[in-house]
């Protein structure tokens, strides 16, 4: 059972209150019509799935019902930090994920 810190409620709460919502920082293509099949498939289906640090979205579904991001190790399950949507503490991890 994970314990997750909601940056809005500013409280550490049990995982059961939250729903995982997949990889964070996936930018919706600005101009979907102009994407090739390759780019569109990448956007829809290809995720990083790292063995190690992962940035993912969580929803505080039984709490404030807001989305936020979590950086978590997918092997040890240790959570490095939670931060609100729109904030992007160490941009480097995000840059690598190029959907454009």
């Amino acid at each position, binding site marked *: 059972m994970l314990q997750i810190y909601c940056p809005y409620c500013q409280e550490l709460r049990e995982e059961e209150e939250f729903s*995982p919502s997949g990889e964070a920082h996936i930018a919706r293509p600005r101009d979907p019509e102009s994407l090739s099949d*390759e780019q*569109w*498939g990448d956007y*829809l289906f290809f*995720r990083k*799935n790292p063995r190690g640090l992962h940035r993912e979205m969580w929803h505080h579904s039984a709490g404030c019902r807001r989305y936020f991001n979590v950086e*978590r190790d*997918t092997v040890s*399950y240790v959570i490095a930090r939670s931060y609100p949507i729109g904030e992007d503490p160490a941009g480097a991890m995000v840059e690598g994920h190029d959907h454009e």
Partner: protein
Amino acid sequence: MPTRSRNRYSALSLLKHGLSHHENWQRAWRNPTPKQSYDVVIVGGGGHGLATAYYLAKVHGITNVAVVEKGYLGGGNTGRNTTIIRSNYLWDEAAHLYELSMKLWEGLTQELNFNVMFSQRGVMNLGHTLQDMRDIERRVNANRLNGIDGEVLSTAEIQTKIPLLNCSPDSRYPILGASWQPRGGTARHDAVAWGYARGADALGVDLIQQTEVTGIRRQNGVAVGVETNRGFIGAARIGCVTAGNSGVLAGMAGLRLPLESHPLQALVSEPLKPCLDTVVMSNAVHGYVSQSDKGDLVIGAGIDRYNGYGQRGSLHVVEHTLQAICELFPAFSRVRMNRQWGGIVDTCPDACPIISATSVPGLYFNCGWGTGGFKATPGSGFVFADTLAKGKLHSLAAPFTVDRFHSGALIDEHGAAGVAH
């Protein structure tokens, strides 16, 4: 074919070894040091990898083969699953692949001279809503058109088959009917790994355990072998069959796969007297249960929805499943659970596997079996061996290449594979 002399298992050999107190049984397989290179290196010694090696040697006469496994044989999902076998998938592509597997299961114990305890006790998928029943009828009809056995059962028929199941209309999850595949059932997971391992070893395949692949060496863009913690092993062709770690392997060759790795949990109870002689699954309440020959109830849960490689999941996922099982089988509410564990499943967006060549010549993947690949072990090994032997996808594997995620030709099996199994 360099077939090693091997004691056949039989009633007679059991008797003979009994006379020497069972102290002189031959080892089931060798523990070889890796050669410098092989015609084919299989990465991953789970059921699928071992079956691939076996059929490469048996069907194609390619015996200069190594299976490289970072832990022990069958220690991944093969040894962690709830062993449900069925072939009642909705779409033709999937149905044909799983049905090939079913046919191979039916002769596997004899083929391998190893008792895989394949038990065709039938698999029942419960329907709890009108929509469930429509889906069930559609799937059973599709199955029958594909020559796969299937029936739609009424609530009364279900109750006769499974007296302990709560079929009352007042139950929390009323049972409106079910699909029933009589040829479905279970097998002993370890025995499947061991049987294929022993068979492959006898035909000359090197099973190399405790050896982790850490890199995929390429020359001029062509795969030429694998780096391991015990040094480089050359290979003309490489087949990666590494389930939840497939994305990691792909990354070693600069490739990406549309897979996400999730923990999937199962648990077993204390042993009970025989009380459930078939397999019961419910997509809607996310639980499935059967009783092993030892008497324990084998119960599978859903995946943890976060990504994870930790071979363990969260307790509330298990709790949720047990609540549902107790609603379905009130008599089980006081059964104690013995052990619980997790495996790392490689889920694919359309709930179908990926059997594919890659943009790196010589490098192939067989993965994405996710929550339901145990049943496919023989068929998967068969078509992947054919693919590696000929350098061309087997016709049953052809629809499952990774290209479908760019062409859009997905094979949506979420209905038939909706619950982890």
